[in-house]
């Protein structure tokens, strides 16, 4: 592992400022929440930062609050807390279900919602230091000539990764919004628009630019009579990514379906909205 310096951020503003500073100095820097994902990336040599900015030292970023017809979830809210929160279990049950099947109990106790949404692909070529693949700056997406059994069947090309998150498809099905903080201030956008297809840019999975971080997820509470469902199919019953996952939300009134969202995980480079 390359030597790096850890800085404990005291506020989101400070974290953003640090990221921007290091970017301008042409040093590599990343923020770290729970760290379970980031540590793996470092050990696999996918990232080799000069600076790691710890977000856990920023107080009050892990809130889960119901207000104004929705639930605001701080970027550092842990997956285990999201899974068990009474409001989420009652009103946003597919999010609770999705958080509850992510990774393993140990990782859910440390992993954050922002980290889960921003997690990098688990493509075995991407994660192997033996392959300098297309996404890492090389020439070739190795799934094309190699083993792509767990890779994209929709929306792929020229890279065929699948987005590995469980919470992302559930949140898209719920119509969630994501708030980011950056040098230019705060920005809110539908979560659906956060993710980037490889045909647009195969070196990134989301729209975050250097200096920007996720600060909050906002999930509107579904209208009464709504029903949802999250199901994950995987080889191993724990600590395994989805072969395919489905998040659905159906809003109906008087026996008529008003709105329906079907979002697939594990099959495309972004949470895939069925249309």
């Amino acid at each position, binding site marked *: *592992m*390359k*030597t790096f310096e850890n800085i404990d951020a005291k506020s989101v503003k400070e974290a953003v400022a640090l990221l921007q500073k290091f970017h301008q100095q042409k040093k590599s820097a990343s923020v770290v929440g729970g760290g379970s994902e980031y540590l793996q990336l470092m*050990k696999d040599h996918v990232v080799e930062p000069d600076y790691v900015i710890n977000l856990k030292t920023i107080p009050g970023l892990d809130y889960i609050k119901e207000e104004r017809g929705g639930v605001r979830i701080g970027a550092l809210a842990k997956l285990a807390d999201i899974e068990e929160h009474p409001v989420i279990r009652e009103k946003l049950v597919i999010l609770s279900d999705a958080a509850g099947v992510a990774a*393993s109990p140990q990782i859910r106790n440390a992993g954050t919602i922002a980290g889960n949404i921003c997690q990098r692909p*688990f493509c*075995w*070529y991407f*994660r*192997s230091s*033996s*392959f300098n693949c297309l996404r890492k700056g090389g020439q070739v997406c*190795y799934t094309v*000539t*190699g*083993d792509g*059994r767990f890779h994209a069947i929709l929306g792929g090309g020229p890279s065929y990764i699948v987005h590995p998150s469980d919470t992302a498809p559930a949140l898209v099905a719920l119509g969630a919004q994501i708030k980011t903080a950056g040098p230019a201030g705060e920005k809110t956008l539908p979560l659906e628009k956060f993710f980037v297809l490889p045909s647009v840019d195969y070196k990134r999975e989301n729209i975050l630019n250097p200096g920007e971080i996720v600060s909050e997820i906002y999930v509107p509470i579904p209208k009464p009579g709504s029903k949802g469902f999250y199901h994950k*199919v995987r*080889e*191993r*019953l*724990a*600590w*395994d990514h989805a*072969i395919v996952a489905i998040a659905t939300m159906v809003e109906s009134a008087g026996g008529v379906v008003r709105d329906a969202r079907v979002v697939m995980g594990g099959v495309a480079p972004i949470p895939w909205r069925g249309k």
Partner: protein
Amino acid sequence: MAQAPKEFSVVGKRITRIDAYERVTGQAHYTGDIQLPGMLYARVLRSTVPHAKIISIDVSKAEKLPGVRAIIHHGNAQIPWSSGGHTHQRFIFNNPVRYVGDPVAAVAATDRHIAEDALKLIEVKFEKLPHVLDANEALKPDAAKITPNGNLSVGKGSFSAPIEESWGDVEKGFKEADRVFEDTYITKHVNNAQLERRVSIAKWDAGKLTVYASTQGVSNARADIAKDFNLPLSRVRVVCKYMGGGFGNKNQAQDYDYMAAMLAKVAAQPVKLEFTREDDYIGMHGRWSSEQHYKIGVKKDGTITAVSLDAVTNMGAYRKQSGNLSGTDFYQIPNFRKHIKPVHTNTVVAANYRAPAYPQSVFGFASFLDQIAHEMEVNPVDMFMRNRIQKYKSRTPFTSNHLDECITEGSKRIGWSEKWHKPGALGGAKKHGIGMALGGYPFRPGLGAATIRVNPDGTAHVLVGVTDIGTGAKTTMAIIAAEALGIPLSQIQLTNGDTDVTPYSVGESGSRTTPFTGPAVIAAAEDVRRQIFNLAAAQLKVKPEELDLRDGEVFVRATPAQKLPLARVVARAGELIGRATTNPSFKDVEGKSFAAHFAEVEVDAWTGHVTITRYVAVHDSGTIINRLPAESQIKGGVTQGIGMAFSEELIIDRLTATPINPNYRDAKVPTHLESPEIEVVFIEHYDSFGPFGGKVVGEPPITPAVATIANAIFNATGKRFKELPITPDKIVRAVRV
């Protein structure tokens, strides 16, 4: 060998391991916990190409990195690794390199991060050679040649190729059959995936080499090191007190032990060489993959008349072990022929993994028998019972054989007669099925040694060379000592795993510790008991042969009120030492542990997911010396079988010949959730050829597990899976709803 007593004092109970507390509280010092003054850290640089000549290695930049203390490679460290390859000379660094992962260099530095950084600064120039990845391709005449003799792995003795064995007359046997069947079964390379990644610490003191090794056998590791470093045994010490598993890939000394030793010599400081999990998957070895073609002749009632096996086993770049397939061992086959070609390919090496020649070939043979039972309309239970082995190679009797009881008991407990149905007969999206298979493992005696020191206070110190790779061997030996001596287990202290201190043990491999070292412990106990009785006879004024020792008290058998506490007897002498080296052999008799496993599954036809709803493992292993670890052994072996059946496989990218899933996450090692509550049943009959009537427990449990699950899946779906692993996509494709 002791006669069967009416009741044991210590043997046969459920006893917590004597070192359990240290292990679970983190107090146990595993090899990785050992810190020595001035210790350096080492990392290994591996080939990134599958087959190439090394033209040059430039370490100049790496040497200049502050903190680097030694760099070795084939240019300056030509150390042979005799046990690493038996058909052509293997070195710790080879030129040409023969697989992606073949070690090229090793660096020792003041910390592990510097060692890793230094690897990146080593410049290696390769001249690529043609390579071959597939075993069948490797046998073609124009295939890339991996060894001077070609790719059919040629050696001596148990490494001769092809592996051939036969008895009877198979052609005659096929003519006698009512039907003859032929089919092919395929299994994959699976890593041992032991929890403790390997690590080795080497230290030189005035020409004597000490290696703190994560090893299954301190004695054979010492022998290997002494041989390849050209040192007398007296100048080599190997230590392993606590060990986190190996399942066969930590037996003897390995190349990284040698690298640590060489680096320590060059740097003149102790060196700790650590493997990452990726190093472990690629740099060590896993179970050999196989393609097994069977021809089986049967009578109308399913009785086998002849079996012919033609197979290819992929040994990877070096021939470290046999490449044999022995799944037919559990059946009575009057006419038999097998012809196996162990083959070299430019891939990760294959060698011993728990019951090396069995789970893959039991999968092949027991699946095929189950298939034949279906086609002959014979119930699988009858098929297996009718054909179970009764005499070794049709002629030699066994020391004990209760395979029939295993089958009867298991089929009763799983509810076979109530639950069995025609394969695939039940409709619906969730399909129920049950299946079974037979297994076991050879049980034979060999060389063992033990020393027992009885202290003046009546406590005893047992010294044995065992390492305890998770089998509970330390506790087993302590129990055997307590039983044989006649003193409580709490009065026993066990010292293990240090060639300077403990006598010879074959090491934990081949399920040999209990049959090899157990008798030595008993004989050492008998030796010191003789000395105790000679002393006590004078004190009690009787003849030594009139005395007995039980629960720490020496007493006259005829008049038990005449007794002395052991301490009173020994205090007079100061300390008594019993010692023994034993090397029994079986004459005109063969030993085996046997097993019959049964599984009930539910197959989801939409997702291809299989849930094992019940699993019953019935074992004939003679007397069970300690029930608690014995049950754990069975459960562990079954769980490994579950992984091998459903998900585990080392996948190699065909373009780059590089393994793409060398870790737990992607090689899909099973979790607790994959395994049901496994019911373990021991059919216990005292086998007079084993210590206190015990046979072997370590390897039998993995042998039938894969086949049991595969046969249950067949019963559920009516579809036969002939290639491992049986992943959800294969099931979905076969069972279109």
